[in-house]
């Protein structure tokens, strides 16, 4: 029984999350206290969910892309573009509080995010570029486009409907949590209740064999990049709405890396194939909890980077077959290594 639990893909991510929370509990017992104030729930745990929302969104999209054997480096830029466009449209309008204007702005920026995803999809599935190269283009150019939209300034808006997206409350909880839950459910439904999940895993595990089995690999790849772009777009809206401003330079900076990290922590292999949405969500929560913890214990927040670095190393080492071999059986002989390399590739 224990064996079955410890083999579950969520076991280690959850253990890490639990350990982090436990540390917080010991360090500051008030960490877990949640109080109701003015019909809203307040507390560190709620904050983690609230501030973690954009990252979870981006990471969910990234999970599907990575599962097909690809990667999307452009999500950070898409986050910036979508926030910038929405804020620009709202700020330029006559009545910033008009719901119609805000809905239009949201629709336009999500549409743009989809176009960005489509562009990546065209390069990867249509032209056949390596994903890391294809999305690098939009990562570089997209940041410039976001700055172009904001003219290098920070666009501020004062619009109640727009602020509701990232800073509003619905039935005790921050509204952004509901967005995340909706996207998570949608992704889970798409991948587990339709055949899309099977196709994604199939394409990611063996693209050639999938084509020969009659799977339209291209449309699958298109779909995941578009979905990933859309997720990044929503994350951009939440981020910019939360602070009522759009910053083309810094919004979504390094999001691609955090998202990839969350996916990898969640147990999805960077080589594609099997993917775990729930693992990704836990992974993103670990990253957010880590950031919050570091804030709380008063260490400069930039130090998070060092911790992240070690988390990446640790996770990758655990996933590395070679490393596990080192642990389980000692190096045996040096020649063993040559044998592995050759058999690995042949």
């Amino acid at each position, binding site marked *: 029984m224990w064996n079955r639990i410890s083999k579950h893909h969520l076991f280690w991510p959850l253990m890490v999350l639990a350990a982090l929370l436990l540390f917080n509990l010991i360090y500051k017992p008030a960490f877990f206290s949640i109080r109701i104030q003015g019909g809203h729930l307040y507390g560190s745990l709620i904050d983690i969910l609230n501030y973690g929302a954009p990252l979870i969104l981006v990471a969910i999209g990234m999970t599907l892309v990575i599962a097909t054997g690809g*990667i999307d480096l452009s999500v950070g830029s898409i986050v910036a573009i979508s926030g910038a466009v929405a804020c620009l449209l709202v700020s330029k309008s006559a009545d910033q509080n008009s719901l119609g204007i805000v809905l239009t702005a949201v629709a336009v920026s999500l549409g743009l995010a989809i176009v960005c995803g489509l562009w990546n999809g065209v390069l990867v599935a249509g*032209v*056949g*570029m*390596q994903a*890391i*190269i*294809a999305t*690098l*283009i*939009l*990562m*570089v*150019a*997209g*940041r*410039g*486009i976001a*700055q*172009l939209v904001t*003219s*290098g300034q920070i666009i501020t808006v004062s619009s109640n409907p727009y602020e509701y997206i990232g800073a509003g409350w619905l039935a005790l909880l921050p509204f952004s949590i509901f967005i995340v839950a909706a996207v998570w459910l949608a992704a889970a439904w798409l991948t587990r209740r339709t055949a899309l999940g099977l196709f994604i895993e199939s394409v990611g595990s063996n693209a050639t064999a999938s084509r020969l089995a009659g799977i339209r690999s291209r449309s699958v790849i298109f779909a995941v990049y578009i979905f990933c772009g859309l997720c990044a777009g929503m994350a951009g809206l939440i981020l910019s709405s939360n602070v009522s401003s759009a910053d*083309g330079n810094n919004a979504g900076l390094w999001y691609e*890396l955090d998202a*990839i990290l969350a996916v*990898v922590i969640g147990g999805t292999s*960077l080589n594609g194939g099997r993917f775990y949405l729930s693992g990704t969500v836990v992974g993103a929560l670990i990253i957010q909890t880590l950031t919050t913890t570091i804030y709380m214990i008063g260490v*400069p927040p*930039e*130090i*998070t*980077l*060092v*911790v*992240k*670095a*070690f988390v*990446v*190393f640790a996770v*990758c*080492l655990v*996933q*590395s*077959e*070679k*490393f596990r071999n080192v642990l389980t059986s000692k190096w045996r002989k040096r020649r063993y290594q*040559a044998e592995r*390399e*050759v058999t*690995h*590739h*042949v």
Partner: protein
Amino acid sequence: MFKRQYLPILVTVGLFVLVFLAGSFRYTGFFSLQVLTNLLIDNAFLLIVAVGMTFVIVSGGIDLSVGSMVALTTMLSATLVEQQGWPPSVVIPLVLAFGCLYGFGMGAIIHYFNIQPFIVTLAGMFLARGLCYIISINTITINDSFYKDMAMTKIQLPGGSFVSISVIIALAVVLLALYLAHYTRFGRNTYAIGGSEQSALLMGLPVARTKMLVYAFSGFCSALGGVVFTFYMLSGYGLHAVGLELDAIAAVVIGGTLLTGGVGYVAGTFFGVLILGVIQTIINFEGTLSSWWTKIVIGVLLFLFIILQRVINVRASKMKVI
């Protein structure tokens, strides 16, 4: 005889000449030796970093840690010189050795644990950036006379123009890299590994050593780039050189190096850096254009060059000699 494999680098050189001439026709005062030398002065650190990156990409890997490594070097130099009072003659060799070691360590992890270079150097990037902040969150200004001398010294060239010492260092690195890439076993082994690591192993080439050395060399170049950047900025700061890895990768790709490894040119990287520099210069001359256009143009160039490489590759595979 014209060889097809040199086409990308010719396109790069041609593009540079074209953009430079376009700028010269459009703006008065553009067509001068000093504009050219300024390109080098302003981009000396990028050139050094991009040269290291060329080796990594040719070997089939990638190094995302270079920007952070530059920042860490400025930070280390600043704190050791200013706050600890160490002499530059100790500090500079020390940071260079540190860069080598850092790269070597990443290379070792990549090779021995068989983890993607992307991820390992990503962790390296986080770590180096984080270490900067552990030293200090604020800027540390450098007042040391040696650094100031290095920053201020102008080497006069005929025609009234001048270059900085950093330019000399950068050009020396380019020449050294050219020699390394084409005339040493280390260089050729790097190309071989980029072509096919499996084959290189079966041909009995020292794959492990070469891979680690490649990352060590990139680490060295980043550290040296950091030293030059310190001359340029006269300060250490954790936010220095943010996104430099992308510029370096872009310069390498625009220089005709295949991101999939095995094919690439140090000389191409040199012109790739110059193209990035000249675009920046034109945008400065234009005045009304803003800096973000640089990013957009680089993105477009990246796209065009990657497409060009694909076209050349597809055609090459269709036209076998025998």
